[in-house]
Structure formats: C-alpha cells, structure tokens
C-alpha cells in the first residue's frame, strides 16, 4: 500500500533535530527507514512529518573510547557486522547484526532505528541486554544514559520520552576470559527472530564467574534467562553443565509469550532451550 500524506524535513545536525522535533507536532524520526516505512505503508502510523536524520555525521560510526565500544545511532547493521572493532570487542553483536533481514535491509537499517523501534522479534535488543549495553539519548531535558535492561519496556515500548533522540549505544569491551555468541531461529520470510538467544560468558580457571543469557522473540521485551544464569554461576562450562543449565530456560519465561502462525508460543517455549544450549556451547567454545 501507500503511506498517508506526510511532510518531510531533513536535519543537518543534532541541534537541528532537536529544533525540528520541538517545532513539528506529530513527527517521526526517519533513519534507515526499515522499521518505519513498512508501518507507514500499512498506515499503522500516519505521522504529519518525517524528520530525516540520515545525514547527521555526529550520529555515525564505531569507535573504542577507553573501556567502551561506542556505536552511533546511524551505524548500519552491515557496518556493525563487518566492523573489526565490534568483532573483536563484542562478537555476538556482530553476529546478530549479520543475520538481520537480508543484505538490502542490513545496508540501510540502523542500530538506532532498530533499538528505538523495539520490535520483540528484532535481534539487537537481546544482544544489547546481554552485553549490559547503555543506550544514550538526548532530549528537551538534556542527555540521559539508560541501561539496556531498563530501556526495553515491552512490545515496541521503550524508555524513550517524547522528543528524545537515541544518539548511540555503548558496550563494555569484552574482557579477558569473556566470550559471547548469538543463536537464532529465523522466520523464513521476515528473517525476524522466532527465537533469538544472546549469551555472554565470563570464566576464570574453567569456572563460570558470570553468565548473561537473554532471550528475544519469545517475550514482549528481551528476557534474561535467570534460571540458566544461576545454574551456570560458579560451575564448569562442560557440555553436561550447559545442557543442564539450558534445561532451566522455560521456567523463567512467564506466561506472556509471543506466538504466531509460524510458531506458537508453546513451540517457542518448548524448544528455546536448544538455542540457549547452542549459544552457550558456542560462547564456551570461544573461551577455550
């Protein structure tokens, strides 16, 4: 279908974005357009104005600043997937970015748009939560930093306030003894995650000192597999230990599970542990 009529304005700087947001009621920010435009075409959203931020240089790029990896909101999935810095410091993020949609989507879609849109079947929210990333935003009341775990509030709902702009995400650099992985069951048409599992493991002398395991696709917002994390804590990362821990996946998922024509909630819940196990095995393998 066709979008309803809208005005289009282009911002050249972050200051201009703020100004345009302040002066245009009912405006939406347009970055890569890969979440927004399908919604406009279905007329599920009919904003009066689109503010195109695609050419604001300060929002682009990947850099290592001290002990954090900073990724500008306008950085595309393809740039993240192929970035040497991301591959080195947050391998699971590069992996997840590389399995979003298809090449056309990855070449246009941006991390900022993806995160702000907060589709429950998107790949990045679970990964950012697993990495304990921080989401940087600016708005009428100044800049804020929000922990990923607090940022994703529910089905396409985030902690972003009115007229706030997501500017960057920051991840702690992968430390010694740490490894990560992302595993996914992709929908064959949309490529969204039916089940997505991000795992970040830290180990010392063969014992797991920290495990962050986050599920996407099953729940309205990314969900930490608390039972799995607890089961791994302090133990070895052997295949048996991993399988036993993964068996705890379903317990912590609650009742608010997503399902659709392709994969019911029951199915997702029943097989999620397999993807948890695979993600843990891959991550553990990278520790060795």
């Amino acid at each position, binding site marked *: 279908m*066709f979008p309803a*009529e809208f005005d289009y304005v282009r911002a050249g700087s972050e200051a201009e974005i703020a100004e345009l947001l302040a002066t245009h009621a009912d405006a939406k920010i347009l970055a890569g357009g890969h979440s927004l435009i399908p919604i406009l075409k279905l007329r599920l959203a009919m904003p009066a104005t689109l503010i195109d931020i695609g050419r604001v240089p300060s929002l682009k790029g990947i850099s290592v600043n001290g002990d954090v990896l900073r990724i500008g909101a306008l950085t595309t999935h393809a740039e993240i997937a192929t970035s040497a810095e991301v591959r080195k410091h947050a391998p699971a993020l590069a992996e997840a970015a590389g399995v979003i949609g298809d090449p056309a989507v990855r070449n246009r879609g941006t991390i900022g748009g993806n995160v702000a849109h907060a589709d429950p079947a998107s790949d990045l929210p679970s990964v950012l939560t697993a990495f304990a990333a921080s989401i940087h935003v600016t708005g009428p009341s100044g800049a804020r930093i929000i922990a990923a775990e607090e940022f994703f509030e529910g089905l396409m709902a985030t902690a972003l306030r009115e007229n706030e702009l997501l500017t960057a995400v920051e991840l702690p650099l992968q430390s010694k003894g740490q490894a990560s992985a992302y595993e996914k069951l992709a929908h064959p*048409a949309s490529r969204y995650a039916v089940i997505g599992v991000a795992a970040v493991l830290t180990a010392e002398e063969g014992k797991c000192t920290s495990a962050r395991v986050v599920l996407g696709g099953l729940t309205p917002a990314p969900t930490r597999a608390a039972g799995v994390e607890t089961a791994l804590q302090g133990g070895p990362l052997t295949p048996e230990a991993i399988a036993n821990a993964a068996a705890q996946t379903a317990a912590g998922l609650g009742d608010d599970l997503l399902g659709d*024509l392709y994969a019911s909630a029951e199915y997702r819940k029943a*097989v999620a542990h*397999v993807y948890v196990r695979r993600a843990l095995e891959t991550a553990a393998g990278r520790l060795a």
Partner: protein
Amino acid sequence: MSGRMFGSAIRRREDPRLITGAAQYTDDIVLPGMLYAAMLRSPYAHARINSIDKSEAEQASGVVAVYTAADIEGELNPMPCAWLLPNAGLTVADYPCLAKDIVRYVGDIVAVVVAETRYQAYDALDLITVDYDPLPSVTDPQEAAKEGAPKLHENIEGNQAFHWTVSGGDVDAAFANADVVIRDRIVQQRLIPTAMETRAALAHYIQASGELTLWNTTQNPHIVRFLSSVVTGIPEDKTRIIAPEVGGGFGSKIAVYPADFLTIVCSKRLGRPVKWTETRSENYQATTHGRNHVQDVELAATKEGKITGLRAKVWSGMGAYLSTAAPGIPTILHGLMLSGVYDIPAIHEDVYGVYTNGTPVEAYRGAGRPEATFMVERLVDVLAKKIGKDPADVRRLNFIPPFDNGHDVATGLTYDSGNYVGALDKLMEKSGYADLRKEQQEARKSGRYIGLGLGTYVEICGLGPSQVAGAIGFQGGLWESAIIRFHPSGKVHVFIGASPHGQGEETTFAQIVSSELGVSPDDVKVVHGDTDNTPMGWGTYGSRTTAVGGAALAVSARKIRDKAKVIAAHLLEAAVEDMDYEDGRFFVKGSPDNAKTIQDIALMANVAWNMPEGVEAGLEASTFYDPPNFVYPFGAHLAVVEVDAATGEVELKRYVCVDDCGPQINPMIVEGQVHGGVVQGVGQALWEEAVYDEDGQLVTGTMLDYAIPRADRLPNIEVHSTVTRSPHHPLGVKGIGEAGTIASTVAVYNAVMDALAPLGVENIPMPFTPERVWRAIEQAKEA
C-alpha cells in the same frame, strides 16, 4: 560455427537489459495525459453489499472519476471461463468485473477510482463507504463441498464447479485382489505464485477511432485480445495488446483479470490513457493462486511391490470464481498423468472442483502435474517402506520400460518417448546413492536424522494438438506460429505468436534459426508480445513455447532453406536436385567452393533482379504448427535432508537431478529453468502456504509472512541430464520450464519422511515448518 549453435550454452541476450534496468515493463510506460486507477477491494470473504457511497471520494483532490457496478452497468460482459470441461457437470458461476450485490472473496472489486496521480487514487479509496452485511464464508475445499456449507452462488448446489473423473482398467478388481493397500491423505496447500513484477495494465482508448491499445503484463497477448473483445465489445481488429517486458508469471499471468477490463472502461469513458498497477498486497490477495487440493489416495500392489491399481478422490479449491483456464488444471493436466512413470493397469480418480471464498485458483508452475506426481511418488515410497524395500527398487520394478515411439497408459494418453530407468540409473551414479544410504545408517547411530527422497516424474507438456484442445473443452487452439523474414543485408527478423517472459527464447530461437540456416544468432532478432506485429499464437505456458513454437520456427526455417536452394540453383545454373547445402552455403554437389551463401540469396530474393521463373520475391516463411501429440519430458530427482529432531528444523543438504527434455538447444538455459523449477517446488515443501483465517482473511498477505525460497536456504543444485528425442517434434525437443517443480516437492517430502522413519512419523502437512515437524515427532514419541 553457426551449425553448432544448437546445443551451445551461449549467454542470454535478454539479460543485459534485464540486469541493467533498461527493460521496460508495463508500469514503466508513461503516456501524455495518463491517469491512474486504483481498485477498492472487498475486506470481507463473503458479504452482501447494501450500499456504496462514493460522494466524498469523487470530491477528493485529483480524483477524476469513481465507478461502481451501477455506473458501468451493461458495459462489460461477465468474465469468461475459457476451459469448458465436458462431461463433468461444469457450472460456470457468474463472474462480474465489478461486484454488484455480493462479494465472494477478500479482494473482489467493488469500485474503481481514477485520479491524476497514483497516490490520489489510493487515498480516495479510503473515502468510499461501502455498507456490507457479512455472510458466512468457507475457504477449505472439502468443507465447502459438505452439506450445509455457506453457499457462494445462488444457482450452484453444493458449491460444485464440476465433478470430473478419469478411469482406465478394472480398479475395483485391482484393490480386491491386492496383497498390499496403501492409503494416504495429502494436502496440496494453496500457494501464491509471486512473480517479481506484479500485475499491471495501461489502457489507451482513442475515442476518435474506436481503437484500444492495452499494455498488459501477460503470458499470452493474443488470448487477451480475443477475450478482451468478448468482455469489452471492442473488436479484435481495433484492439492491440502489447506485453512489454513481463517479469515472470508462473501461470498467474495466463488469466484475464477484471481489473484489466475496468482499466479499459475507464480509458474509454474518460478519453485518456489509464494505468493500473497492483501493489504487492493486492497481488497476494487478488492475482490467482495455485494448487489447493485435498487428496485421498489409495494404491494397490502385490507383496513384491508391483503396483496394480491407483484410486483417488480429490477436492480441488477453485476460489470464488472460475479463472480463465482453471477447470483444466486439476483435471486434464492432473488426472491424466496419474500413471506417472509406471505401468499401472487400473486407475480411477474423482475430482471435485469446489467454489470457496478464496482468491481464484489457476495454473501455477507445473499446473496439475506436481499434484499428480506427488500422489504417485509419495505412495510408492510408502509402499516401499511397507514391504521393506528401497524406494529406488520399487520404482525400477514398476517403470515403463524404455520406448522411443509411443506408449499407452491407463488414463488414455500416449506418451511419446521415455527412458525412466536410464534417468534413475544416472541419478544413482551421480548422487552416490548407495554411499548416501550408508551414511544415513551411520548418522542414525549417532542420533542424526538424514533422509533421502526420490521424485521420478514424467510430465505432459507442449500443449498440444488443437483437435484434442477442442475435445477437452479448451476454448482455443493450441498450435503456434512463426514467421522468418530475411532482410536484404542477410539479417533476420523472427516473429512469433508465443510470448516468452523470462524463459530465454529470444536467445534459443535465434539459435534454432542459426542452426537451420547458417546465420549468426546475433543476426536474428526475435519479436514477440505485440498483437499488431506478430502472428497469432496461444501463448507461453505449460512448457509449450519451444515444444510447439520452436517446431513452427524449425518448419519455417526449412521452408526458407527450400526456397533458397531453388534460387541458388538458378544463380549457379544448376538443377535443384543437384544442389547441396551445408551451414548456410548452397552449392552444386561436389563443388563446395563455388557456393551462394544464405546472405547472397537473401539479397537476391529481396532485390529480385534475377529470380527463377515462378518464384516470388522475398525470403520469408510462415508456419502454423499444430503438434500431432503432446511431449513428455521426464527425469529423476533426489533430495537429501537432515532434520533436527530437537527443534524440527529441516535442512536441505543436497539436491541432485537428472532431467530429460530431449536435445538441449542451450544447456545453460535448461539448467536455469531446472534451478528455478526445483526451487519453487522446494518452496512448497518447506516454506510456502497461503493461509486464510476462519473469516476468510488472507493472513499471509505480505512478503513478511509468506515465505518464498531464498538462495541462502538452498544447496547448490546438481543438474544432470539424459537425452531422449521426441519422435514427433521436428527438432526432437520437449520442454523444461516446469520439470523441476513437478519433481522436487515430493522429493523433499519423501526425504523428510525418510529421515523421520525411525521415529515413526508418517505424515506431516506441508510446508514443513519447524513446529509442524517438531509436533509430528512429539506425537510419534507419545504413540
């Protein structure tokens, strides 16, 4: 060099324009003063229309006109059904271009808006208010056939469009005497063809002359001209149909569509060109779908595995109305092929065509033959399992032995030529079948589920003898035409009635002319798709363009050669009987150095300064070729899959095929057709399904939900071939456009079932989503 062009894998001349964006599709064409049409479609699967208020839409910015059924009453005849199946109690439901009182599927058109821009036209759709009373609806064909089901058409009982049967041999006796009887319920789910280019029409009616030009994305412009004249009343001589570049069809662009005729009416009334182009959502909703069978199949056999009978009952969903060729697909193109590659002495099938509240169902790549092949090939595998034999061995036991000039089967067809065991032997060798079986056994020991699936097939294509077309109710002929015209410089135009749209005949037909007449293929231009400058032809579908049109072309080339020989003899002052020909050169036998080339003859024939007595000027030939029989390509395919029993995910690990389409004009193009066909068939097994909810809403209505095959989910397809000539085709060739689709769905199905055999899984509905496979495994564990 030119003599060897037949069989050369030269590059497709179509591709540079296609891959550089230079190709011109219907939607690319812009005419001065052009308006845009948009169709308001029913949001209900079944409803009564109480009233339509279009006043607000008419006032909207840019809107030129809004038409409802009441506005154009009497201007368009009902949509024609052009395959009037005889002896089947066929009931053709009234199919108006614009719904008047009742809408019967989500997508039925209730109004058309014409505006200055496409956006304005679509915006105005929202301003039309239609007051509907929803009615009960039904989309499953078997449910729709039951007593008490919602009734779609007032004068049609039981929603029955037809009840067609095919019978040969004593089926009851076969089942009564069988050692083994196999039964299965197979659902061939509804599929969406998904051509890359959605449907489009641009109508330009000139009121001063009463002449219509319609640019239309179609597989058969001459049929569109004929049927357009029937529906619109604009006579054929005043109608020009142009199929510019057509971005795929797969059967969905055979039919004529209400929206095309409405676009014509808009142009006729407004005196301006009017363009209509579907959105993808509209394409999914309202362009014809495929398959949609519920099949109950039984096979009778001896305990050694010799098949003695096949019996089936099929409910075939036709959708809300009968599309142009629809009745012939699940009957003639399906039931007559139930013997497959086997000698089955007794066959009986009942096919019930059923109206449902869904999009009309039409031909979709393979069109009836995949559904038939599936039934036979699936049951052969089940039989093999039951009697404890390898499926390849049961196939060998039942194959029709090699034949080169005719073999009759119980359904009444006479296959032209075949060597089914030859294809299977080659497949066994190329795939390393015996080793794969060993690997499968090893894998099972370590809890891995690998499966091998065979699909052996023969298909009917090259439709077909026109006398047969008449006898089976096809409302047209099935011959093809080709004109070859030499210009003074020796360059050549070929004009054909068929209408290739991606299959590559611009290249292969030039190769035929090159081989027959010794010109370079680069000197041959193939013209198609415009009814004002091509001879009549019945179109490109059913793998018939090379099988029938290619024959017309070869015969024309031979006529040219005969005439050229007479002229050459005259110029060389020799008797025609003393002339020899080789690779574009005519010479007196024994004197090859003193030759006249085809180019020399073309120049002389065109200037006509020195022609033999009684020979006309010009070097041109025209042929209308009506084939004496269909052609029957065949082959053997193998799919190798691995199933993850924990999640139900299926991975297609290898795909090996051997196809026999006779001598290949261009092996690269054959390989491409096999690739595309295989992939679409795999799509049915693994990913594709058009799903309606209980209210008849298409819930797989976008490409986010309906999964078409993607390259990264497929292995390298290993393509091999054998060559068995058709005894009756002038070039011996058959057809290859649909072969892959016909074999591959069941090959993948059989492979998955083979993988899961140790778990006791016997039947999973397609497509094999991980959840369906997982559930089947879980249920088998419980049993």
